[in-house]
């Protein structure tokens, strides 16, 4: 079972609908035991970093997610959920994140483009991985902050004035800045790829 972490953040149900559509057994839950026992954990998220960390903390899920990662259980963070995987964020004051990938979450610098980045942007591969299929494909983004991290953790990126990581990975911990559940067939394919990586325990590329 894939556990979708339920912590009162926006629109987690659309992610659930996508997993249901793909026939991936899943459950929306904030139960620590279920999350620890899950085959894989998906951390969604819409909204602000600080508020999200407070909600996770309230449910004692910060330590739970750290344990999940230490147990080598695959984790997929999506949008704000991806940002939470990093060490810290500057959104509304410096806030600590889960610290599962090295880096900090910062405001997209003003290069004359509209902020938030809202719409379809084209990915390019930074390093080989099972997600190679995303190369040249458009996915759907809605965000004002981005992950400033080491290039070795960047699987793919988009250009939005600066290079913005779109898929990041540190071994069994993966993040997607875009919404795969809103990115049409390309997004569904990426969720299937993640499922396959979980089934075959293939996180060796990074």
């Amino acid at each position, binding site marked *: 079972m894939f556990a979708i972490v339920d912590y009162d953040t926006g629109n987690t149900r659309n992610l659930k609908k996508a997993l249901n559509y793909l026939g991936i057994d899943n459950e929306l839950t904030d139960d620590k035991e279920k999350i620890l026992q899950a085959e894989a954990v998906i951390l969604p998220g819409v909204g602000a970093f600080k508020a999200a960390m407070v909600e996770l903390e309230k449910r004692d899920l910060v330590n739970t997610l750290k344990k999940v990662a230490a147990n080598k259980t695959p984790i997929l963070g999506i949008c704000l959920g991806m940002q939470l995987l990093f060490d810290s964020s500057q959104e509304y004051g410096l806030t600590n994140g889960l610290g599962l990938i090295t880096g900090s979450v910062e405001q997209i610098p003003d290069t004359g483009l509209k902020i938030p980045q*809202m719409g379809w942007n*084209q990915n390019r591969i930074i390093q080989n991985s099972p997600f190679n299929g995303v190369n040249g494909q458009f996915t759907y983004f809605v965000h004002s902050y981005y992950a400033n991290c080491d290039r070795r953790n960047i699987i793919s990126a988009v250009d939005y004035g600066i290079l913005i990581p779109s898929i990041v990975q540190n071994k069994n911990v993966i993040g997607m800045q875009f919404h795969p559940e809103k990115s049409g067939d390309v997004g569904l394919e990426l969720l299937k790829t993640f499922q396959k990586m979980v089934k075959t325990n293939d996180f060796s590329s990074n």
Partner: protein
Amino acid sequence: MLAKRIIPCLDVDDGRVKKGVNFVNLTDVGDPTEIAAEYQKQGADELVFLDITATNEHRKTMADIVESVSSQVFMPLTIGGGVHDVTDIQRLLKAGADKVAINSAAVSDPELITKGAEKFGNQCIVVAIDVKKTAGKYLVHTHGGKNATDIDAIEWAKEVVKRGAGELLITSMDKDGTKDGFDIELYQAINEVVNVPIIASGGAGKVEDFTEVFEEADVDGALAASVFHFGELSIDDVKQAVRKAGVVVR
């Protein structure tokens, strides 16, 4: 670089898509979910559903439609029509909408924009503005264009963005239904004063109209209804043409 969006718009009345959509392969020509799935297949970047139902009773069915569409179709969905308060916004978002468009209620209760943006984030609050040029001035109209106001549309665009609108859906009533091209001047004027995405609506008739509104007015998306529904243009026709002109599309 972000792709320019091509957006079909569907009018929904009492749970059914109203304008006859004539894709030959549909089993039920009025079923919103089936039509949405077909548009996804054709390469639409987003869908707008406008609830034109007059009664509140029927309005509840809109949330059911959103629930159903978002279980089968995986792209951004904007829902508008009859959104009066924060509860309406919440119900639609919870059902699976990504964005909610507010039109008349934004004029009668501008505080709703701020409340919605604070509670759910600017990114999901779209303000829809129906505009008609009268005596040289762009004026805001409400209630499906029936009621004229003396509000200057350019000033109103500025105001709603200040209040928290994350996107503007601007319909030119002068151009709507003419198939004569988008109102380039209107979008240029609005793009000059706001820094949020603008969706142009009204006037699409041929592929060149889309190229023109992207190139001349630099809008973020272009919306059309009948030309897509009646198969006069396909999403793919439009994308190929604008791509050829050097505009980035998906």
